[in-house]
């Protein structure tokens, strides 16, 4: 015991320190606000223009009729966009997931760093280059002509690296303890990966797939080379039949000197934005966890 403890000296910041802190605080908040306004403002502006201009063009005919010259509706384009995007996804999702599983789970091979590097390079390749590549190889060389098949393959090549890398990341988040638990029960690699790791990582994997879908819906350049455009609904042929899509309507019709063409372009922009928005909302909902199923290792 001995002497009673002296009261602790109260620490008071010197006034110039307080002033400096106030200024830094103000600057920090100010810059954050400016950044938010730039991003949020741009977003709101785009949405406002698309909705206001597209709104005039929106009517029931837009979704019930196909394009006729520079008028009519966009049914063919809406249908084409969905077909091409899902066609691309059917090709890229299994392949991308398989590559992601390889990278995350079987990293010991020499191939893994090569695949990872190539995936990163593929993300950086301009989409128009991929479009041209598909034009030369698929449309011309293989004689598929402008078609659903060629367009889907082009979109699949573009989405592949996203699905691959997000799957890899999601699988890497699966804690080691779960894998060990499964291996300790005598499970084989396939059952550990497909029975434990993939289900656990599924929200992350789905987010990557939805991101790829959103990118596919918004792509233009690769489709110009591979799908061309069509005023008619799809008849079900995979090759030798061009198909319409929304981004073409935006790209081609906005430069035409007709008010009806402009209206269609804005309506198409409205639909593309709507689809991407819906996909984003869906991917957020995938990540929201069911109550009572909270994963203890996330935050």
């Amino acid at each position: 015991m001995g002497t009673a403890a002296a009261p602790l000296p109260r620490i008071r910041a010197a006034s110039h320190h307080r002033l400096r802190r106030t200024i830094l605080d103000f600057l920090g908040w100010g810059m954050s606000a400016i950044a938010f306004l730039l991003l949020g403002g741009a977003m709101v502006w785009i949405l406002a223009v698309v909705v206001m201009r597209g709104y005039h063009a929106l009517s029931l005919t837009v979704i019930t009729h196909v394009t006729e010259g520079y008028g009519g509706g966009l049914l063919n384009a809406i249908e084409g966009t969905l077909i091409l995007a899902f066609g691309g996804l059917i090709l890229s999702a299994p392949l991308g997931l398989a590559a992601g599983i390889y990278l995350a789970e079987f990293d010991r091979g020499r191939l893994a760093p090569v695949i990872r590097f190539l995936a990163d390079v593929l993300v950086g390749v301009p989409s128009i280059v991929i479009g041209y590549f598909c034009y030369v190889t698929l449309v011309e060389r293989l004689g598929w002509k402008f078609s659903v098949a060629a367009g889907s393959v082009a979109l699949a090549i573009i989405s592949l690296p996203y699905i691959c890398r997000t799957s890899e990341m999601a699988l890497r988040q699966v804690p080691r303890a779960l894998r060990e638990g499964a291996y300790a029960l005598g499970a084989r690699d396939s059952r550990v990966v497909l029975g434990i790791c993939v289900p656990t990582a599924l929200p992350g994997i789905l987010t990557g797939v939805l991101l790829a879908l959103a990118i596919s819906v918004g792509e233009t350049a690769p489709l110009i080379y591979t799908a061309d455009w069509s005023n008619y609904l799809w008849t079900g042929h995979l090759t030798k039949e061009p198909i319409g899509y929304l981004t073409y309507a935006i790209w081609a019709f906005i430069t035409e000197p007709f008010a009806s063409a402009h209206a269609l372009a804005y309506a198409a922009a409205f639909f593309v934005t709507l689809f991407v928005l819906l996909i984003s909302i869906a991917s957020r909902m995938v990540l929201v966890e069911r109550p009572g199923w909270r994963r203890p290792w996330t935050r």
Partner: protein
Amino acid sequence: MGATSDAETICPTGKTISSEPQGPLPATAAKISVRHLNFFYSRRQVLYDIGLDIPEKKITALIGPSGCGKSTFLRTLNRMFETVPYTRVEGEVKLDGEDIFGMSVVDLRRRVGMVFQKSNPFPKSIFDNVAFGARVNGLKNRDKLREVVETSLRRAALWDEVKDSLRKSAYSLSGGQQQRLCIARALAVDPEVILLDEPCSALDPIATAKIEDLLFDLVGSCTIIIVTHNMQQAARVADQTGFFLLGRLIEFDKTEVMFKNPSRKETEDYISGRFG
């Protein structure tokens, strides 16, 4: 090779220690017998010349300070170390006289189950957690699965607490219940040996007591090896106790001998709390 031949190491107190001498195989049936086991992480040797016989249908405890190699030793018994790259073993481990490094790792792990330090239920329902082990064994019949799940949960003394919520997430259980769920999951494979790696280190005394009671129930049907930091736990539950220090097995004997009359100075120092 040089590291293996000199069987002596300097312990933290500055004295020279050596591994327990390894006699020939005993006449009594040992479930697992280990001879001259060396273990390496990359170039670093962490186990030196381990030799012991784990008696069948008994509880064997492994004690020792952190980093002494007891968990590593446990992980060699079901070859779990193989999931970590750059590991290597030398020596002999036999399960019922059969070389474990010669058998398929899948078969080995089905015979030698494991429960980990931190409970690691899968993000599935309580039912599916337990059924996973049975499904790994190839069981598909729904009624049979239900039966195995119930039996395993009963054996793990968890059935009465969860029988009405089998479809709920395993994460809705408390820490102690989750650990018993992991034991039930291991039991669903019907293993001959169960390895427990500090299963109670994250549990409160009541949950710990439940797990210890459970071990007494299980030992009639399987061989149990438990690694523990808690010497009282070893004294309470184990028939045999092994003391590890700096990668060597210093002493391995009946628990009461180890705690009352250890033959080695290091064991006595550790048990009486002089270091560790």
